[in-house]
């Protein structure tokens, strides 16, 4: 295997943090692969995004074209195919994000490359890649040993790898102005849409009382609201609760909702999928209440209560009043 190619992610003129985590993974793997890390930035003005990448990748391939302003896999794919043919990487890494989930399977499918997604650990040995993943809602860990291949495509779970220091390596850049893109299909980016206006800003709360699917139904949400009132706290939720409309979308914590850092995060009936954890794991103190002692939420919580939330909620209210 030779070298690691990282595909940078950016949106609305800003490099996305997850790119740096991918570089952390890439630099860790580089010694095992015997070659260097090259980062591909596809953008209208890739130079403007290069700052945070300096010192964190050996090579920087800045590929410029106006049609690369917003992400579009049909524009990315032909450009990447050329870049891959030139660099011949053994491993192609990108975040397991809305972009990576669009791009990675398309790239792997089109080039006939093996694909492993949502990895939390990667090792490379004897010509084959081994990937660590989490399955069954994070309750089971999976180790996949792939068959030997000359090139693999992997996406990385947010938060699983650390961004490298800014002076980890020397970076040499190369600018390439693309004249023509040749998309296979006419997918067209129209516009970005900002999320709906919110009733409250959960990110501003000192204490969050957060409910998951375990709350059971809309009729039980007031139980959490009463506790929140007694604490001067705000009610937030996991995605399924917002999906079915038991609470507004603006209350959702997680990758596709809000990132919060309250002093206290009380998680009630939330299993702790990584998309949820990503939005709350940096809270000051996390207290989780769950019936299931094996719920993944207990891995990020500071304090855990294995209990039925319907017994815990009234009890907490009593204790506060008393």
């Amino acid at each position: 295997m030779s070298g690691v190619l990282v595909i940078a992610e950016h949106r609305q003129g800003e490099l996305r943090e997850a790119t740096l985590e991918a570089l952390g993974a890439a630099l860790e793997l580089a010694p095992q692969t015997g070659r260097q890390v090259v980062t591909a930035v596809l953008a209208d003005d890739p130079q403007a995004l290069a700052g945070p990448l300096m010192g964190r990748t050996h090579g920087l391939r800045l590929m410029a074209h106006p049609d690369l302003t917003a992400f579009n896999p049909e524009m990315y794919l032909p450009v990447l195919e050329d870049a891959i043919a030139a660099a011949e990487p053994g491993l192609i890494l990108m975040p397991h994000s809305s972009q990576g989930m669009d791009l990675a399977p398309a790239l792997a499918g089109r080039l006939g490359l093996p694909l492993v997604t949502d990895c939390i650990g990667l090792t490379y040995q004897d010509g084959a890649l081994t990937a660590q993943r989490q399955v069954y809602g994070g309750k089971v860990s999976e180790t996949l040993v792939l068959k030997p291949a000359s090139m693999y495509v992997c996406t990385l779970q947010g938060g699983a790898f650390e961004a490298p220091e800014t002076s980890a390596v020397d970076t040499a850049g190369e600018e390439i102005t693309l004249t023509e893109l040749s998309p296979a299909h006419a997918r067209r980016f129209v516009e970005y849409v900002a999320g709906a206006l919110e009733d409250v800003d959960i990110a501003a709360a000192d204490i969050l009382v957060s409910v998951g699917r375990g709350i059971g139904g809309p009729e039980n949400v007031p139980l959490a609201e009463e506790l929140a009132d007694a604490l001067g706290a705000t009610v937030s939720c996991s995605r399924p609760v917002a999906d079915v409309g038991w609470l507004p979308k603006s209350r959702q914590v997680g990758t596709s909702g809000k990132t919060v850092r309250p002093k206290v995060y009380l998680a009630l009936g939330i299993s702790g999928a990584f998309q949820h954890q990503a939005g709350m794991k940096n809270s000051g103190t996390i207290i989780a209440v769950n019936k299931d002692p094996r719920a993944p939420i207990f891995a990020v919580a500071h304090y855990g209560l294995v209990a039925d939330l319907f017994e815990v909620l009234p009890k907490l209210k009593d204790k506060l009043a008393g």
Partner: protein
Amino acid sequence: MDILVLVKNVPEVAEADLEIEDNQIDLEDLVMGINEWDNYAVEEAVRLAEASGGGVTVMTLGDEEAEDVLRRGLAMGAGRAMHLCDEEFEGSDPATLARAFAAAIGDESYDLILCGVQSSDLGQASTGVLLAQVLNLPFATMAIGIETGEAEITVTRELEANTSERVVLPLPALVTVQSGINQPRYVSIMGIRKVRKMTIGLFEADDLGLDEDQVGEEASQVAGRALALPEVGEGAEMLNGSLDEICGRAVEIIREKGGLS
């Protein structure tokens, strides 16, 4: 608009006590059901077909029990169901599954193929987009809205941090559906009973013209797989005692750390 939806039968694990045997989770005592994301996809397909005139086909790959998710799809309004059922498929990876689905689609022409963003069991989020590659179709993942137009659709894709984007795809196309795109209809036992006589097309690997080495472990990119249960109790300090005691302690912690005392 003729729409194909891929659905998967998965175990409900959130509250279950999982056990691992031979590197598989023991499904014996687990309740199976339609993958959450696929349920939204079926609902979306039925709505789009109702609005535009057209039919919905549901297709799954799985053991005999997986027929339940097809019946459920029929009860929700699909008119046709296809079941890829063969032990030969065991151990297939997403790329292999995509080729099997493509073979089953053959030269049938759908205007739109819908899949869930991911399945809740393995969470690979790959099969849909890989199928689009085999079929050479334009695609978009993570749809929280689909509007139909003249020979094209506009898909609202959910991105991170409460932002979305709108993209236009020419038809035919493949879209993966994110949870929350709609409110799926309730499926009653009566509803399932009503469709029990509808025939479901059954396909083995052979029927799809797939050889042994094109399906299952042999065709898969995975050489070995190991499953393990993480240690219990790594991470949080678990509060022990009676309900009264642990709640008392929890209130103390909230007061102290939340700056209330």
